[in-house]
């Protein structure tokens, strides 16, 4: 296919517009009012950039390309449409991992071309650019370094995100820990970097490197992504996913530099920076430092025994609970991920509306990491139709708990555990919590007697003013609704 000579300029111009649209779109996505149009703008930029790429000079393998795009788009589109909102965090992990894998694969192709071409170039040391005349695959020193770094980061993001996905999806044990794990991981990393560095040094000198080095580098990078993610507990996964999101952004930016593609450089770098900040914000909301998340092995090997919790679990039945709330003045509903899993948010909102009709002041109290990610619970409540003004952040509602007559905890556990304030030996000590224990009465809807995500006993459940309402979240909420309705007869 011969293309007019001005085509590359048009492509460059479209890339530039796409980069502007990405930034504009992200900007709009950062405010609830304009968020929806943000993704549409960014999507338009993306579509334009993809289409013009077909018109770059010298593109071949087009049937393969179109086939792979169609298959990839259709599969992800269907999966993305079908999954329930509760599964969104692992979907982000999955799609992010795919991006990281793609960036690593791009780097691999470029390095293979470079290494193969080295054999065709007169061996001068250091290599002279003019020696490359007519030989495809030339990479300068900076490009070469960034290609290697991009492969490493992209590969780690790829396998790491897949592990994060499997953990959140429940396909994999929460944590996988063995002795000396940190040292094993470090060894994998060092050997991977060594393979890469030796190959890189040879490449800069203008000598072809052994293929084994490149293969070893890529394989060990992939293994390191797995090894690094395995010991991290499910509760910390959001932070990890966000970090891998930033990783993929960086990998894309670096490989964009290798390909001299400005749109990739800018979009990748913006995501890299935004993702880094987002990761910090999330870690802060959970009162964990990033280092602690990555290397802390939550609870593992923590020698000190946790305090014994005295008291007994006191059950309550749904009718009594409904009556208690119907005659309360102020009720706070504290939803957690368990509510979302049980798909109980619609029923809970129905219950809340009935209470509001009776003149009860109802608020929803949201912990920053309720659900699986900051803001995840807000999305789920919004889906059920709960208006914004009834939803309170932790900092706003915490001082009010002593004035609240009934706090209804549904599917939340660790984020209401007073142990985080009182027990220094607890793994969650220091994590900000909702002060539910200070409410006059607490009702906890819980499926069974199991522990929370972090695997810690919850002192709240044993408190004198706490009653346990056992049952599946949705069923319990329906019973509460039924209980309220019988009052009106």
């Amino acid at each position, binding site marked *: 296919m011969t293309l007019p000579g001005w085509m590359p300029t048009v492509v460059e111009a479209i890339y530039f517009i*796409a980069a502007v649209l990405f930034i504009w*779109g992200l900007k709009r996505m950062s405010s609830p009012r304009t968020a929806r149009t943000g993704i549409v703008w960014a999507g338009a930029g993306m579509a334009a950039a993809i289409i013009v790429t077909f018109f770059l000079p010298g593109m071949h393998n087009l049937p393969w390309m179109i086939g792979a795009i169609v298959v990839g788009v259709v599969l992800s589109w269907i999966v993305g449409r079908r999954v329930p909102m509760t599964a969104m965090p692992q979907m982000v992990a999955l799609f992010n991992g795919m991006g990281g894998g793609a960036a690593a694969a791009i780097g691999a192709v470029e390095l293979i071309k470079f290494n193969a071409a080295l054999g065709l170039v007169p061996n001068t040391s250091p290599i002279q650019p003019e020696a490359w005349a007519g030989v495809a695959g030339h990479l300068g020193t900076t490009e070469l370094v960034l290609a290697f770094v991009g492969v490493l980061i992209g590969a780690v993001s790829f396998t790491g995100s897949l592990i994060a996905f499997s953990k959140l999806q429940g396909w994999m044990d929460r944590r996988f820990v063995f002795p000396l794990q940190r040292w094993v991981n470090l060894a994998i990393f060092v050997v991977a970097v060594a393979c890469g560095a030796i190959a890189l040094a040879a490449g800069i000198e203008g000598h072809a490197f052994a293929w084994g080095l490149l293969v070893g580098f890529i394989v060990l990078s992939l293994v390191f992504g797995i090894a690094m993610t395995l010991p991290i507990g499910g509760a910390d996964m959001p932070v990890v996913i966000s970090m891998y999101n930033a990783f993929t952004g960086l990998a894309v930016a670096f490989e964009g530099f290798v390909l001299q593609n400005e749109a990739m450089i800018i979009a990748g770098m913006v995501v890299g920076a935004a993702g880094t900040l987002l990761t910090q914000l999330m870690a802060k909301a959970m009162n964990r430092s990033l280092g602690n998340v990555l290397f802390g092995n939550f609870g593992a090997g923590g020698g000190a025994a946790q305090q014994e919790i005295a008291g007994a679990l006191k059950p309550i039945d749904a009718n009594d609970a409904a009556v208690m709330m119907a005659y309360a003045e102020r009720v706070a509903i504290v939803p957690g991920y368990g509510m979302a899993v049980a*798909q109980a948010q619609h029923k809970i909102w129905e219950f809340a509306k009935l209470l509001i009709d009776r003149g009860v002041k109802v608020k929803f109290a949201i912990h920053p990491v309720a659900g699986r990610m900051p803001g995840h619970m807000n999305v789920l409540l919004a889906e059920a139709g709960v208006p914004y003004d009834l939803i309170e952040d932790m900092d706003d509602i915490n001082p009010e708990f002593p004035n609240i007559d009934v706090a209804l905890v549904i599917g939340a556990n660790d984020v209401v555990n007073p142990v985080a304030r009182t027990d220094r030996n607890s793994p969650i000590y220091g994590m900000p919590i909702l002060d539910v224990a200070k409410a006059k009465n607490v009702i906890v809807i819980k499926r069974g007697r199991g522990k929370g995500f972090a695997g810690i006993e919850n002192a709240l459940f044993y408190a004198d003013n706490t009653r346990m309402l056992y049952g599946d979240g949705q069923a319990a909420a329906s019973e509460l609704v039924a209980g309220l309705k019988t009052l009106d007869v």
Partner: protein
Amino acid sequence: MITGFLALYIFMLAAFTGYEIISRVPVILHTPLMSGSNFVHGIVLVGAMVALGHADTPVEIAIGVVAVLLAAGNVAGGYVVTERMLEMFKTSKPASPQSAEKKP
């Protein structure tokens, strides 16, 4: 051709832009925004297409096809997931009762 310091300037400015965009975001938008940025790095598809478009040997083509496949998944999945999440932010008024019936 972008070289050395010019690239560094681009990296630096883009990084500040990303940082600034996120720094004033309310917590409720963290998840959608992470998903949105996940979509934006789907631009890697363009790079994957270039890599595949210039691949010659079977090995290069195979890796290139994997790259395009993964990147296409990133783009499409990232868009759908973000769009679905942001759909919830249509209005700040109480939703109509029938939306409560709609199962995801």
